[in-house]
């Protein structure tokens, strides 16, 4: 079992709450604020957010490497908030692998096992060899870490975590030191490994692609506060606020400031007529809104289409299957992702449309979502939406 629960977890640095390590930098910096997450047994939860959002601190609190300032952490109903790292039955994989440089791979993997259990050295050895087979590194067992490549070191670090059969794996950006190709490969391997072992995993990353592709659920943090927890597709289609909408998805969502007048959205370069259903849905919405549209949802309008925004192309980035067009609308540049086979020229103006079903609307003040691309109230087609350029 590995049901992990964080209840109102708060971590303040320099505010009197001591921790296990490091210097005391700064006064009263709130790293994590009132964070509550529940995690099912065997779940793969990804904590994602920009640098300094508190995701690593949260992980270190779960590991016991930082004392929490407030809140409780429990594992399978057992309160572990004040337990030492070794008493929590968790294993951690670090960003820089943190292998012991003076020990062989065999010793590195088996070290935790030999300390925390009373297995004989031959039993530890058997277990280490089993894990090495699983990770396809048996030939590395007698080498020292400095003789290994980054990818091999990463496998050893994984082996060290797996061998102890913990209730929870904690992974702190384990792939960020690898090159792009190896990262993709290791991503799949970690996913497979986690699925095979069925061990609950908390995975920290700043890479939204990793979060989207690996997690059963993702928790998006910003400024120490939880913004949203949900499946990757929930977070993609139904972001709780503008921050989540902008963070999840690549390239990022475009945000256009608009004014809601009751029956249309007014932008300084165009006005956007709303369908009756959406008007009804937005009845209590604030006047100042932000219209969000993902680059992949912007469509090139056919000749004679009604719902068009006239936008000159500033830059074209051909990616092969897709091309990114950087368009200027109302003096600001936005990105559209279009079919790579379409040919356009820089400087040429194109007519684009934002399908009503795909647009998101956020309150300009606070950023909460008032309409998402999957909202039931939004019509399934964009027939009723009218966009007219000024």
């Amino acid at each position: 079992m590995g049901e992990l629960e964080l209840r109102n977890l708060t971590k303040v640095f320099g505010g009197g709450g001591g921790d296990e390590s490091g210097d005391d930098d700064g006064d009263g910096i709130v790293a994590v604020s009132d964070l509550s997450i529940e995690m099912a047994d065997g779940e793969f939860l990804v904590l994602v957010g920009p640098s300094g959002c508190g995701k690593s601190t949260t992980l270190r609190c779960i590991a016991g490497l930082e004392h929490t300032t407030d809140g409780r952490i429990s594992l399978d109903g057992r309160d572990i908030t004040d337990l030492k790292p070794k008493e929590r039955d968790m294993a951690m994989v670090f960003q820089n692998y943190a292998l012991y440089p003076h020990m062989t791979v065999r010793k590195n993997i088996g070290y935790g096992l030999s300390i925390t259990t009373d297995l004989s050295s031959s039993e530890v050895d058997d277990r280490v060899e089993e894990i090495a087979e699983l990770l396809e590194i048996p030939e590395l067992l007698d080498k020292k870490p400095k003789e290994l490549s980054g990818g091999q070191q990463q496998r050893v670090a994984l082996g060290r975590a797996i061998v102890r059969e913990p209730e929870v794996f904690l992974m702190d950006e384990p792939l960020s030191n690898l090159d792009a190709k190896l990262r993709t490969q290791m991503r799949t391997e970690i996913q497979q490994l986690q699925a095979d072992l069925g061990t609950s995993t908390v995975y920290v990353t700043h890479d939204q692609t990793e979060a989207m592709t690996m997690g059963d659920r993702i928790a998006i943090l910003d400024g120490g506060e939880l913004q949203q927890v949900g499946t990757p597709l929930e977070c993609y289609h139904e972001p709780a606020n503008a921050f989540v909408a902008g963070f999840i998805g690549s390239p990022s969502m475009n945000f256009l400031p608009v004014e809601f007048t009751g029956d249309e959205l007014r932008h300084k370069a165009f006005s956007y007529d709303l369908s009756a259903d959406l008007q009804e849905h937005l009845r209590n919405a604030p006047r100042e809104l932000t219209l969000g549209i993902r680059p992949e949802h912007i469509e090139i309008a056919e000749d004679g289409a009604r719902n068009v925004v006239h936008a000159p192309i500033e830059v074209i980035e051909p990616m092969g299957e897709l091309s990114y067009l950087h368009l200027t609308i109302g003096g600001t540049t936005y990105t559209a992702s279009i079919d790579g086979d379409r040919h356009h020229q820089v400087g040429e103006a194109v007519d684009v449309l934002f399908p009503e079903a795909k647009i998101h609307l956020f309150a300009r003040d606070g950023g909460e979502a008032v309409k998402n691309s999957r909202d039931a109230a939004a019509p399934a087609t964009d027939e009723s939406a009218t966009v007219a350029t000024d």
Partner: protein
Amino acid sequence: MSTERRTHYGLGDIEIGETGKKIGFYIAISLLVLISFFPIIWMFITSLKPPTEAVRFPVTYIPETITLQNYRTALEQRPFGRYLFNSFVVASGTAIIDVFLGALAGYALSRLRFRFKLPVLLIILFSAMLPFISRLIPLFRLARELMLLNDYLGLILPYAAFQLPFAVWIMQAYFKELPDSIEEAGLMDGLTRLGVLFRIILPISAPAMATAAIIVFIYAWNEFLFALTFMTEEQMKTITVGIALYGGQYSFPWGTISAAVVMSVIPLLLFMLIFQRKVVEGLTAGFGKA
């Protein structure tokens, strides 16, 4: 053709330039080594000269007669072996205490969180700057009361105290460079803080320990004033004091003194060589590709 020729000359120029640089480099290095080694070389030459030649003027740079008489005299006249042994015990004891305590204090100062950390570090450094001579009389009285005169501990303890600040600074500076994650991995693996220090951190801190040990050992080996004051019995004297005693009230046997100095330097050189290799080994390589 002409292009090929020019290329050929060009390469030749580069080769000459490179060789010239290398020669210049080695000449400069040799000069530096010669300057710093001159006293030792001079002592070695003097130790091989007969007594009359050693004080002759103008000096002879290459001995006319080579003799080992000075070495024989040095070994026969006084208990030279005993002096060496005493120095070795005192210097090793000092180095062991300082490396051990320096590691503990250095670890606490570099890793643990407590208030007034910087002031503590500065006080430690400041204590090393107190005038050496001012501590002699009080410590002599203390040693006499504690019956530590003519006892190895009588020298080891003050030496260790004087050199501890350097050991602490060296160790804490080194520990600071080690990634936190390696310790955290140890904590996650089930070690205690002290377990992490002794089983993970110290084994990979050999370079820092060797550096601290070398500095402390050399200091303790070379110290004269305390050794002269605290060790009055012939059997307890260290090598520095022993060498000074070769001189009489009216005579100064330079040849014998030089022979003794040369013999006293050899263990120090061996010690340096052994530990220097440890330093160069670079045990810290392989922390991952951070």
